[in-house]
């Protein structure tokens, strides 16, 4: 009994001293690893327009940046109606007490200047309670047409300073824009900002296109198209829209994905009904066969260090997830729960593998460790499919298709804890999202 009390006391003391230490020295920080239950409140007062031309941009920039932060589920915005102070001059000292009074833990101030088509955005981040700046102020310069990217860059900097993780907002998503009735869907390859803005269509709707994926620098997209009459893997430059069939594809090819260094592509080739995984050299087109089982071996994805490939195979009956050396050879099954597992994608952090799970007539997006342990299902619906990772490995996008004769797909995002699920609005139906890394 005595011992138990002593243990209890020492635990309390340790906890108390830890808290004291934290209060003294730790910068404002929110942990995203275990899932954020209480988002951190921040204020982002309207960025100061330093000239008349900057007014419109100041308002839009502030809005998009706040949407990024709120959309992550990690932060909560204190609405401007509650603000006591206004920021009218970027360089005037901040009245911390006014922001503390409305419980804003973080304060983001900014200023915008526009001359011609040149846009200059400055911002600072403050820890309100400690009354100190968090990191240096930053200034971004760009053309006015890329103003949204400036917002995303500011949001990435804020996210990074407050979470200790890299951000993911200044990124794009390649996806398949779908229109028309379910039996005769028209599909186009499309590109958008991660938040659904700036949609561009890269192909017409004449041929079925599927499963685009970005090259590491996001300048090229590899995807499956039926434009020759049967499925073939094409490589397209996003700027010129020039495209070519990658290497020698004697028969059907699908499920392509780049290696982390961008020099190779793994994909499935189907010969006489048997689908196997091949590696194709992007420059030479030379291909190497990596699997040779009578099973359907598909959906290959590299580990971030390029040494391993995770893929799905039905060699043991139903679809399951396997890992093999990137040079091929023996594969080890890692999925071991009930149901079927497909579309494995290795996290850019290297720690997790995202997948689609089919069990008892329901589809789930989930994550597991690379040894198959600690499986966690993040979503459930009639049809959830095709996860793709954010640049920082903390969020996944996927598509959700509704059931029935009018069933149609939409793109969603969910964080790896499963707490923050959001629809990404697109002008048409959307499927097969592929998320780029942070843009350069």
């Amino acid at each position, binding site marked *: 009994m005595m011992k138990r009390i002593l243990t209890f006391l020492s635990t309390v003391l340790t906890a108390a001293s830890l808290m004291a230490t934290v209060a003294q020295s730790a910068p404002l920080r929110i942990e995203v690893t275990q899932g954020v239950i209480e988002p951190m409140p921040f204020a982002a007062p309207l960025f100061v327009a330093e000239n008349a031309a900057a007014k419109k941009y100041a308002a839009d920039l502030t809005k998009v940046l706040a949407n990024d932060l709120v959309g992550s589920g990690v932060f909560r915005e204190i609405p401007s109606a509650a603000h006591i102070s206004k920021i009218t001059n970027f360089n005037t000292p901040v009245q911390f007490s006014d922001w503390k009074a409305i419980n804003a833990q973080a304060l983001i101030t900014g200023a915008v200047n526009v001359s011609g088509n040149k846009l200059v955005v400055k911002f600072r981040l403050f820890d309100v309670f400690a009354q100190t700046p968090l990191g240096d*102020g*930053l200034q971004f310069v*760009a053309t006015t047409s890329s103003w949204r990217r400036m917002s995303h860059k500011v949001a990435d900097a804020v996210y990074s300073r407050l979470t200790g993780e890299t951000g993911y907002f200044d990124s794009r998503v390649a996806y398949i824009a779908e229109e028309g009735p379910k039996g*005769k869907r028209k599909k186009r390859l499309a590109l958008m900002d991660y938040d659904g803005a700036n949609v561009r269509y890269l192909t017409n709707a004449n041929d079925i296109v599927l499963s685009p994926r970005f090259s590491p620098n996001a300048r090229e997209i590899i995807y499956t198209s039926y434009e020759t*009459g049967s499925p073939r893997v094409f490589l397209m430059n996003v700027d010129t829209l020039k495209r070519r069939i990658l290497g020698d594809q004697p028969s059907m090819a699908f499920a392509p994905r780049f290696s982390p260094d961008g020099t190779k592509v793994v994909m499935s080739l189907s010969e006489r*009904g048997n689908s196997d995984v091949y590696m194709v050299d992007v420059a030479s087109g030379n291909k190497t066969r990596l699997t040779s089982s009578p099973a359907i071996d*598909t959906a290959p994805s590299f580990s971030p260090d390029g040494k391993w490939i995770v893929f799905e195979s039905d060699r043991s009956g139903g679809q399951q997830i396997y890992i093999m050396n990137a040079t091929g050879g023996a594969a080890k099954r890692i999925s071991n729960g009930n149901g079927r597992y497909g579309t494995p994608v290795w996290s850019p952090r290297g720690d997790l593998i995202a997948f689609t799970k*089919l069990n008892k007539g329901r589809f789930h997006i989930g994550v597991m460790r690379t040894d198959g342990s600690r499986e966690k299902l993040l979503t459930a619906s009639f049809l959830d499919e095709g996860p793709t990772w954010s640049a920082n490995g903390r969020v996944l996008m996927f598509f959700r298709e509704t059931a029935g004769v009018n069933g149609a797909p939409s793109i969603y995002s969910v964080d790896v804890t499963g707490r923050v699920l959001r629809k990404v609005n697109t002008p048409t139906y959307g499927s097969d999202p592929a998320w780029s890394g942070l843009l350069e």
Partner: protein
Amino acid sequence: MINILVKFSTLVILAVGLTACGDKFNGNGNGNGTNIGIQPGSPSDPTSLAYFQQTIGDRVLFAVDQSTLSPEAVGILNGQANWLLQNTQYVVSVEGHADEQGTREYNLGLGARRASAARDYLVDRGIADNRIKTLTYGKERPLAVCSTEECWSQNRRAVTVVGAALGS
């Protein structure tokens, strides 16, 4: 595209780049299992396309996740093989499909497997390999669009699409 230009007092300047920012088969290639360019004719004329499609049956169905031929499928493929042996001016494309209850890429593999199962049987029955092409549509071209087994069973199919041979 971002260059760090200057670091002054507490402001770091970053600049973002200002400029940043074939072999089509004679079928219609849409996976609908229909033919173009050939007159369908009458279902009672054994040499007609309509006879092939409607009287013999141009499609075989599969069980969930399976590509093995059912006895019924074998019967239909026997009819198709006999017709093709009689009507040698035609080539065919066997299009494999899957229902929506599967992931896209796996279903492409499954469609390929189903098309191949039908093709292999036709070859066994004496049809020249080079008269038969296979194609997979996965779950991209459902024939029936409800989300119940009634529709799914119609979508798990391999459709033999007849086309005119080159030079015929």
